C-alpha cells in the first residue's frame, strides 16, 4: 500500500455547513476526538447562502404559535410523506436551538420588546422565521463556526472525501479523500461517521446551489450499503433569477413574498388566486383586499396565495409561462416595488437589493423582478432514525440536507436551517453514543484504499479522453429537460438510458495539469456521485406514479392515496459499490400515533 497521511478519530463529520458544525460541536463537547471535514474553506458551505430565516415556533410575534401548529404545517407542506417523528422533534426542539445560537453570539433582528423577531414565509401559519435581514445563513454558520473554533475542533478544510470505508463486518469505519491544495491523499479511521454533506442541485442546469452540491454524501452512503428514501422529491424554488442568463437560477428569497411582494403575469394579474388547491382553500384569501389585510394582522384576513407552499407556487409559475403569460425572459414578475417603500425594502431585503442592482441592473425598489423556478433542495436522502440520525448501516449517521424524511415530499422555507440545528445536534449525540459503545479499534481495508486512489488518478493517465466539464454540462442539460419540475414516464425512461451513456463517458475522462488545486480533476471525482444521485432521482420519479409535493408527473397529475402510504427506498445489495445496481422498493411509512393524527382532523 502507498504510504498516505492517516488520522484516527472517535467521530468524523463530513461537511461543515450548519448540520456538520452542530454535530461536531456536540461530539467535542462530549470530549470525543472529532474531525470536521469540508470541501471548501470553513464558513463557505452552502448554509452561508441561506437568506430568509430559521423556522421555530417561539411565539414571539404571534402568541398563538406552538410546536403543534408548526408540526402540522410541516406535515401538510410535505404532503404527509414526512417521517412524523422527525417533524415532531423538529417542531419541539427548534426554539431551543435558536435560543442556543443567541447564547453563542448570534444577533437576530428584534421585536419592539427586545425578543427575536419572526417573519412570514410560505406554508407557515404564523410569522415564525427568526432572521437577520436576508442573510440568516451567514449568521447561523458564522455563529456555529466561531463556537466550533473556540472549542478547538480539528478542521480539515478543502479536503474532499472520495469514499467511506467499512470494516469486514460492514460497519462504517472511516473515509478516504484528498487535500485540494496539495493533491495528496489522506485517510481516516473513526468509530462513527456523520454525513452532513448537503444537497445535489448541481446536477441541474438552473440551480440555486453551489459547485459543492454534487450529492457526494448521498452517493457514498448508498455505495456503503445504506438506504436512501424519497429521492424523487426535489424542490424547485419558485423564485430564482432568470436574467441575465449567466445568473439564471440564483435564489430570490421567499422573504420578498413574506414581506409583501406579489407575483404577477404579463397581464399584471396576481395569478396565484387562480391556483389554490382544495387542501389550502379554507385558509387562503379569496381577494386581493383580504390578502392585503393579512400582512398587518393575521387574524383580519386569510393568507395571500403567494405564500402557499413552494411546490404549489412553482407549478403555477410554470403554467403561466407555458400559457404564454410570462415575462420577457421566460419568468413571471415579482413585485415589491409598488407595495413597500424603498426604505423598507432596503432594510428588510438588503442583499436582494444588492444582488439585483449589481447583477441585473434592476432596482427592486422601483421595478419588478423577473423570476422563475430553480432547482433548490432535495427532500429525499439517507434514511435515518429520527432520534439518533443513525443510517441503516452501523457506524453511519446523517443530518441536514443529506438526510431524508423530515420534509416529506416538499420542504417549507425556513425548515432547513432549523433541521440542521435540531438534527445536527441529534446526529452528533447519536454518533457519540455509538462511538463510546463501539468495542475495539475500527479497521479498514488497505487494498480498498489503494483501489480508490488508483481509480481517482486514472484520468491523468489517459492520453486522450473526454473533458469532464462537457460531461457535467450534458448531464445538467439532460436532468433539466427530462427530470425537471414536470416529469413523464417516457422521458424518465429516456433519462435513465442517457444516464447509462453518461456513466460510460465519465469513465473515459482525461485531465491535464497536476494534482495541486486542479478543478478539472476535482470534477472527475464529483461525476460518479452526480451520476449516482441523478439515477436515484430518476428511478424514484419513474416509480412514483402520482404527483405529490416536489414530484409532479404529467401522466399522473393527481396524488394517489396508495402512494401516500409509502416511501420509495433505494438500495444497493451490500458491497454493490460505485458500479452496483440500484433497487427501488416501496415500503410503508412509519405509523403516526393517534394523538398526533388528531391534529389533522377538522377544527385544527
Amino acid at each position, binding site marked *: 500500500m502507498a504510504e498516505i497521511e492517516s488520522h484516527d478519530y472517535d467521530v468524523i463529520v463530513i461537511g461543515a455547513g450548519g448540520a456538520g458544525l452542530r454535530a461536531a460541536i456536540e461530539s467535542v463537547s462530549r470530549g470525543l476526538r472529532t474531525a470536521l471535514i469540508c470541501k471548501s474553506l470553513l464558513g463557505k458551505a*452552502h448554509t452561508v*447562502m441561506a437568506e430568509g430565516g430559521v423556522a421555530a415556533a417561539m411565539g414571539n410575534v404571534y402568541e398563538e404559535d406552538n410546536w403543534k401548529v408548526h408540526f402540522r404545517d410541516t406535515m401538510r407542506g410535505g404532503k404527509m410523506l414526512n417521517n412524523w417523528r422527525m417533524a415532531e422533534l423538529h417542531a419541539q426542539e427548534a426554539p431551543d436551538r435558536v435560543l442556543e445560537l443567541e*447564547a453563542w*453570539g448570534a*444577533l437576530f433582528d428584534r421585536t419592539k420588546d427586545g425578543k427575536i423577531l419572526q417573519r412570514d414565509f410560505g406554508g407557515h401559519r404564523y410569522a415564525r422565521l427568526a432572521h437577520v435581514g436576508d442573510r440568516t445563513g451567514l449568521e447561523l454558520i458564522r455563529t456555529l463556526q466561531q463556537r466550533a473554533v473556540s472549542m478547538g475542533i480539528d478542521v480539515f478544510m478543502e479536503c474532499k472525501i472520495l469514499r467511506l470505508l467499512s470494516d469486514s463486518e460492514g460497519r462504517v469505519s472511516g473515509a478516504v479523500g484528498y487535500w485540494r*491544495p496539495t493533491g495528496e491523499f489522506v485517510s481516516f479511521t473513526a468509530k462513527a461517521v456523520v454525513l452532513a454533506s448537503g444537497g445535489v442541485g448541481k446536477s441541474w442546469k438552473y440551480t440555486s446551489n453551489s*459547485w459543492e452540491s454534487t450529492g457526494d454524501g448521498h452517493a457514498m452512503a448508498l455505495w456503503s450499503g445504506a438506504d436512501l428514501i424519497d429521492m424523487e422529491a426535489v424542490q424547485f424554488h419558485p423564485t430564482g433569477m432568470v436574467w*441575465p442568463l449567466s445568473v439564471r437560477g440564483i435564489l430570490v428569497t421567499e422573504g420578498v413574498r413574506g414581506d409583501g411582494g406579489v407575483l404577477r403575469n404579463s397581464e399584471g394579474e396576481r395569478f396565484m388566486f387562480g391556483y389554490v388547491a382544495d387542501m389550502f382553500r379554507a385558509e387562503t384569501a379569496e381577494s386581493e383586499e383580504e390578502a392585503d389585510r393579512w400582512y398587518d394582522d393575521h387574524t383580519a384576513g386569510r393568507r395571500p396565495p403567494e405564500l402557499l407552499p413552494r411546490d404549489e407556487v412553482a407549478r403555477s409559475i410554470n403554467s403561466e409561462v407555458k400559457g404564454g403569460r410570462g415575462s420577457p425572459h421566460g419568468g413571471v414578475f415579482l413585485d415589491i416595488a409598488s407595495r413597500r417603500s424603498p426604505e423598507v425594502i432596503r432594510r428588510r431585503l438588503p442583499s436582494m437589493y444588492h444582488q439585483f442592482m*449589481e447583477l441585473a441592473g434592476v432596482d427592486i425598489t422601483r421595478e419588478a423582478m423577473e423570476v422563475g423556478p430553480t432547482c433548490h433542495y432535495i427532500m429525499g436522502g439517507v434514511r435515518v432514525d429520527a432520534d439518533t440520525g443513525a443510517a441503516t448501516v452501523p457506524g453511519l449517521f446523517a443530518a441536514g440536507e443529506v438526510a431524508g424524511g423530515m420534509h416529506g415530499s416538499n420542504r417549507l422555507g425556513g425548515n432547513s436551517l432549523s433541521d440542521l440545528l435540531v438534527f445536527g445536534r441529534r446526529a452528533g449525540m447519536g454518533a457519540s453514543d455509538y462511538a463510546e459503545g463501539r468495542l475495539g479499534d475500527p479497521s479498514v481495508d488497505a487494498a480498498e484504499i489503494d483501489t480508490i486512489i488508483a481509480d481517482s488518478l486514472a484520468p491523468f493517465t489517459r492520453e486522450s479522453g473526454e473533458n469532464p466539464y462537457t460531461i457535467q454540462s450534458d448531464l445538467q442539460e439532460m436532468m433539466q429537460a427530462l427530470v425537471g419540475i414536470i416529469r413523464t414516464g417516457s422521458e424518465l425512461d429516456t433519462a435513465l438510458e442517457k444516464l447509462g451513456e453518461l456513466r460510460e463517458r465519465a469513465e473515459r475522462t482525461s485531465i491535464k495539469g497536476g494534482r495541486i*488545486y486542479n478543478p478539472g480533476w476535482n470534477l472527475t471525482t464529483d461525476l460518479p456521485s452526480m451520476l449516482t444521485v441523478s439515477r436515484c432521482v430518476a428511478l424514484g420519479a419513474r416509480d412514483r406514479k402520482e404527483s405529490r409535493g416536489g414530484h409532479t408527473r404529467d401522466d399522473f397529475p393527481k396524488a394517489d392515496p396508495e402512494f401516500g402510504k409509502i416511501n420509495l427506498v433505494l438500495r444497493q445489495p451490500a458491497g454493490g459499490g460505485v458500479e452496483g445496481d440500484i433497487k427501488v422498493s416501496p415500503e410503508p411509512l412509519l405509523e403516526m400515533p393517534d394523538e398526533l393524527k388528531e391534529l389533522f382532523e377538522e377544527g385544527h
Partner: protein
Amino acid sequence: MADITMRVWRGDPGGGGFEDYELQSQEGEVVLDVIHRIQATDAPDLACRWNCKAGKCGSCSAEVNGKPRLMCMTRMDQLPEGPVTVAPMRAFPIIRDLVTDVSFNFEMAKKVPAFDPAPPPEGGYRMQQIDIERGQEFRKCIECFMCQDVCHVIRDHEENKPNYAGPRFFIRFAELEMHPLDTNDRRELAKELGLGMCNITKCCTEVCPEHIKITDNAIIPMKERVVDAQYDPVAWLGRKILRRHKLTAEEAADRG
C-alpha cells in the same frame, strides 16, 4: 468572434505569469462567469475559488485590474475596455493560479476569545434593535479577506503578520466589545494584536464588499476604548452603556 481578452495569472509558489485567453462576451456576465468558461474549455486546471456566485460567501476574491474584487460581483460590461487582468490576492502566499493560502486568517480567528454572555434571565435575553445594529453591521462580514489583502501593514510586510490581526479581526473585536450581552474584555488582546499599528488609511473600508465602515465604526472606537482602558476604566464602562447614542443620524433615520 472573440471580443474580450482575459489576462489571467497562472502559476505556483515557484513563479508564474499572465496568460491571455480570448473569448466572446455574453450579456450580463461577471468576471467569474468568464473564468468558468475558460475552465470549461481551454484550461480545466485553472484554479480559482467560488461557492455562491452571489456575493454571499466571500470565496472568489481576486485582484481584477489591480484592485481586490469579488469576481462574482464584478460585471464585465462595467470594466474599462481592453484586456481584463485577473490576479490572486497579493498579501497571501500562492497555492496555484488564483488560489492563495489564506490560513493566516483562520489562525488569527483562533486567537479571538469566545463570546461570553451572562446566563439568561427568566424569559430569555432581551436586546433592543438599536443596541445590536452596530454588531449586525460587523457580522455582515463574509470573510472575503480583501481588507486583509489591502492593509499595508501586512500587504508587503510578511514580518508583521504574526502580531497583526488585521481589519477583519478588528471588527470582530469591536463586535464583541459592543455586544450588549458580552462580559469579556478584549482590549488588551486587541492591543497585542496590532491595533496600534493601524494608521487609519481606510483602504480596508474602501474595498469591503459589504460596505462595513471598518475604520470609522470599529477601529477608531476600539482605539479610543483601548486608551480609556489605560487611563479610565469608568469611562470605558460609560461607553459600553451609552453605545446606542453613537449611531449616526443617518442610520437612525434609515431604521424608520
